[in-house]
């Protein structure tokens, strides 16, 4: 019983970790290449979810909604870049934190303005509804498996893109030394735009994928943004590989920790105290983990060499 429960929780953790990775990937690139701290990355995730909700209400099909939402998220990200973020690249981190905080305030209220404060729901696509038996007697929703598959696919795609294409090479070079790349004749402004738009689209994709299993509501990006920051800080800013491993680690630690911390503590404490402390410690686990990582490796597990 505990073994199957652990297996299900591990799958949930993997799925959560991959969603985190989709958000963190864009964030770490933007951060690494442009040295730009973008708090508004979380609202791009939220916007992705809202776009899919709106488009699926309009077209009646999740597939079409996803196809429409992705380019819209891309355009939206580029729009933000041109309007606001472009003017912040040469400012210090403090200004960037504040201005993007302003973007959060605006967009959280903005979605309330357009779609109302009540959560929207998106139905799971027909094709991917239902559950499959993954071990004897153990059912798991197909849609969650689809998220895992999509996440792994994107991760593989990103790996090829970053490590084996010319754009990827420029991005990696930019993460190491942006001004040198610029001096070598690369249009760094355009590279920034590409990276930014792509990151926004990935975050939007993550939001779109979770829309059917979570409620789509204002502020849904705020907490996941903090988790994405934890991921990229643990992984080392600018490192896609670090973000991938850290995202899976955080996903697993958080999900498994929440369901097993009380059980583990029961070995040393009496049941009432164990469940009390377990519930208190579980949500703190990842932050304790992050503090520990930074204590021993102040620039993350896979720092980009400068």
């Amino acid at each position: 019983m505990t073994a199957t429960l652990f297996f299900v929780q591990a799958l949930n953790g993997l799925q959560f970790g991959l969603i985190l990775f989709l958000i963190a990937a864009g964030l770490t690139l933007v951060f690494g290449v442009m040295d730009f701290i973008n708090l508004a990355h979380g609202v791009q995730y939220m916007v992705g979810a809202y776009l899919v909700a709106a488009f699926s209400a309009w077209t009646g099909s999740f597939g079409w909604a996803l196809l429409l939402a992705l380019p819209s998220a891309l355009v939206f990200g580029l729009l933000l870049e041109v309007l606001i973020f472009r003017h912040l690249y040469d400012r210090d981190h403090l200004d960037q934190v504040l201005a993007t905080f302003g973007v959060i305030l605006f967009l959280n209220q903005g979605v309330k303005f357009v779609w109302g404060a009540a959560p929207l729901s998106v139905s799971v696509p027909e094709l991917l509804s239902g559950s499959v038996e993954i071990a004897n007697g153990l059912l798991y929703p197909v849609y969650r498996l689809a998220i895992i598959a999509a996440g792994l696919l994107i991760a593989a795609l990103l790996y090829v893109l970053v490590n084996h294409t010319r754009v990827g090479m420029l991005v990696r070079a930019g993460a190491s030394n942006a001004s040198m790349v610029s001096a070598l004749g690369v249009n760094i402004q355009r590279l920034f735009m590409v990276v930014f738009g792509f990151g926004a689209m990935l975050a939007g994709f993550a939001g779109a994928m979770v829309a059917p299993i979570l409620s789509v509501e204002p502020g849904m990006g705020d907490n996941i943004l903090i988790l994405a920051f934890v991921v990229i800080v643990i992984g080392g800013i600018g490192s896609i590989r670090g973000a991938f491993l850290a995202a899976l680690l955080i996903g697993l630690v958080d999900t498994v920790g929440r369901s097993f911390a009380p059980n583990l503590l029961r070995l040393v404490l009496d049941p009432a105290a164990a469940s009390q402390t377990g519930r208190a410690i579980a949500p703190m686990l990842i932050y304790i983990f992050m503090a520990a990582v930074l204590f021993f490796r102040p620039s993350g597990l896979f720092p980009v060499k400068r």
Partner: protein
Amino acid sequence: MTEIAETPSAPAPSLTTRLEIVPVVLFTAFAAAPLLAAYSGAEGYVLSLLTRVMIFGIAAMALDLILGYGALVSFGHAAFLGLGGYAVGILASHGFEDALVQIPIALAASAAFAFVTGAISLRTKGVYFIMITLAFGQMLYFLATSLAPYGGDDGMTLASRSLIAGSAWLKNDFTFYWICLLCLLGAYALSRSIVVSRFGRVLRGTRENAVRMEAIGFRPFRFQLAAYVISGIMAGLAGCLLANQAEFISPSFMTWQRSGELIFMVVLGGLGSLHGAIIGAAAFLLLEEFLPEILHMASFFLAEETRAHLAENWKMVFGPLLILIVLFARGGIMGLLRRPHHG
């Protein structure tokens, strides 16, 4: 090197001898306000709003001490508000209702938390520092949400305000106002004396160039940690007062958005002037309070329904305002006040 010539001249040391006009006006205004509030027709409302302004003024000033003078961007300072507040709430629920017991414990807890988290955070630099302070803040936030005996997510209502040496003085809003003003003045005097001292000069030197400070024989880490702890204690005091003012405490005191608001207050007022942080806190809270009404009034030419809608969604104006301030009003409100002297 040109760098030195270009460094923005932070408040000149001559401030010690010359009485600055802005803080004098500011504190006089705070002192006169309760007398004038009587004529406003909504005395209780004005008093409680201004009390809130002063409390957040203390917290923002505490942040300015490390942010403006030490360039340490702490994105978890709301945690100290929560620490102070929960210390009051938890002690009160166990029967320790006297501020003379609560406040020392709250301040000690804030100092201990600041010491431990500061010692770890200060090992990192730049963005990593922002993120690790954020992580510690979140840690405390989630701890508070899981404190089931003390209300968990919902928080808890205090039975009454703290007693002082056994008497219920703070029940009176006027007395509470004066106590808060006294705390604000005390915190200001303390911070002012810190930044003009040798300690403060080392801190500012570290802000400009840590390596150079090390080269001339200082250990920046110790100074930064000490400043971080002092700042934490002051913010903890603000937390005690805030819990008393609201007679309520909940995890929402220490969300990361609240930490962001504190940073905004400091930047809005102008970094590195202390009283700028108080002005920033005042501007922020008053804007938050009155922006809906201002929007409603300013849009008199629109239909009533649209006007109500606009007022309801005031945050859609507040957010872009924040962005515009960051983009165009560098130096904050103090920067605007100071400019004529330079020109």
